[in-house]
């Protein structure tokens, strides 16, 4: 038995060595890959996604400073800069570019039709016309969607407030991703026979008023993965605690800072998934055209115990719905 193991071990080792030799001859493994990154705005979730992306590349064998050079561009929410930055990344002959959030992804896709593009933190790649279909992109773009199962989130909320007659939804109408999710949530609630009140705010400055108005009208609140509302999470937390309204949010960060529960996406692991896809493309194992768009693999239930106690709910009673 032992001898067999040793033999297989030796043969594997020799194969690896041979493989190493052959690839060294072509000089491919020594080449430094250039990756350009374009992000719309500095934001906790998006920053996490970028951090995860680098981890994912590392998992795939690409390490910054060794065989990988990253050029990171952030438009700081001035969309007029997206095009200049896209041009820069494309003109630098990047081997691959990453677009973080919808406008960045669209700007890159509009600038190059040949450099492979991976995107992350985009809710609906098909609606943004980045891919022909999620299973077979057919263009030079693929990536990960941050679309979470809205149905499950609504079920989670309704399991916490089973007697609710009216549920509130609030988001920033200026965020394409939020709008898509809110519409799905409205549909899911209507299907469950619950009335829906929708309120929108365009800046964090309006969030408090919107939350207060909504909390007076409903027995539970749902917030999609919305950048504006996630930024104002602690403020929202104060209001819902005072008004004793359970709040389920799409983003796990928001729950940590002032919601009750979420079955949400961990943006760092979403970015990591994206990084692994990018590594496959860089090593020539796959082409974006044929790589199906991936959903987040690890959704997690997050419960804010302090908030639960403040609302008089036993945190253990909150379970992830199927």
């Amino acid at each position: 038995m032992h001898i067999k193991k040793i033999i297989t071990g030796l043969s594997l080792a020799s194969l690896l060595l041979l493989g190493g030799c052959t690839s060294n001859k072509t000089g491919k493994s020594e080449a430094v890959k250039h990756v350009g990154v374009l992000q719309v705005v500095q934001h906790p979730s998006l920053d996490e996604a970028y951090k995860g992306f680098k981890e994912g590349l590392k998992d795939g064998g690409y390490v910054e400073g060794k065989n990988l050079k990253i050029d990171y561009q952030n438009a700081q929410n001035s969309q007029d800069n997206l095009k200049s930055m896209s041009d820069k990344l494309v003109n630098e002959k990047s081997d691959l570019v990453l677009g973080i959030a919808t406008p960045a992804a669209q700007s890159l896709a509009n600038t190059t039709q040949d450099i492979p593009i991976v995107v992350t933190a985009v809710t609906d790649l098909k609606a943004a016309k980045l891919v022909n279909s999620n299973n077979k992109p057919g263009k030079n773009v693929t990536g990960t969607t941050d679309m979470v199962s809205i149905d499950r989130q609504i079920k989670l909320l309704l399991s916490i407030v089973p007697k609710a007659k009216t549920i509130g939804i609030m988001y920033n109408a200026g965020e394409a991703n939020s709008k898509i999710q809110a519409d799905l949530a409205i549909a899911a609630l209507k299907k469950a026979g619950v009335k829906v009140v929708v309120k929108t705010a365009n800046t964090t400055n309006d969030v408090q008023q919107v939350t207060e108005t909504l909390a007076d009208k409903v027995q539970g609140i749902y917030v999609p993965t919305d950048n504006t509302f996630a930024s104002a999470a602690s403020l929202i937390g104060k209001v819902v605690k005072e008004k004793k309204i359970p709040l389920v949010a799409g983003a796990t960060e928001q729950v940590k800072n002032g919601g009750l529960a979420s079955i949400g996406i961990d943006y760092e692991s979403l970015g990591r998934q994206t990084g692994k896809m990018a590594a496959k493309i860089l090593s020539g194992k796959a082409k974006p055209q044929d790589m199906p768009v991936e959903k987040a693999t690890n959704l997690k239930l997050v419960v804010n115990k302090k908030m639960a106690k403040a609302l008089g709910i036993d945190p253990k009673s909150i379970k992830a719905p199927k």
Partner: protein
Amino acid sequence: MMNTFWDLFLSATSQGLLWSLMAIGVYLTFRILDLADMTAEGSFPLGGAITTMCLINGVNPILATLAAFGGGMIAGLVTGILNTKLKIPALLAGIVTMTGLYSITSRVMLNAANVSLLGKATIFTMAQNLGLSHNNAVIVTGLIISLLVIGLLVIFFRTEIGLAMRATGDNPEMSAANGIKTQNMKIWGYMISNGCIALSGALLAQNNGFADLNSGVGTLVVGLASIIIAEVLIRNLAIGGRMLTLVIGAIVYRLILALVFQMNVEPSDAKLASALVLIVCLALPNFKLSRKNKGENKNVSSTEN
């Protein structure tokens, strides 16, 4: 390196040409009428939205782009009425319209925040179909449109109504005393200005491949910076020449920004870098020799003769 700079230059030129219409629009209110008009940040995304919605519904790209101009004019009409008939101060009137336009633009885009144009025919793909590369198509189309707009404006400012408008900006009391309907002149100025700005938004949406509700943020600064750069580079020009230099100003501003991005500034410092660029541009005239005081802008000389 040389090659990169050439690419940079081409990219800045193609975008600068499209932004020049923003600069021209801001110039009409800021310099000719001597008003600060914030409507720009609302009419810019409105123009992008109108054109994008027209294009995805199969309207001819030229008509779709013209429709944006019309939409911008209506936005300007609203600000003009608020400012002149309802006596709301110009700055506030612009902010009020800009705020309201957010919802209007959202309505135009059927309540979406972002509408994609990827793969749709645009005014630039029309030029590409004539055998130009994408960048050249943008440069040629941008040149044609900006020169056309400048030409039309030069002709307009030689007409009686155009001269009356310039007089209104230079000296409202004297103009009124000479029988010019100054209120109407201001309204017309607002309308043409915001028409140009919406046109800029329409062209940029087609160049970027999407219309976005939040794309107006910071656009007024782009227009102002282009004007200041143009005035610093070449001073004391007649109106036609001045508008031509606005195109150069817009291109130079894009080029400066592109160079800032090249320097790989820390992302969180990028805004500061842009602000410093603006400070340098705005302060430069102080180091020039002659100074003329004109209204609020004591540090910048400009002539409208």
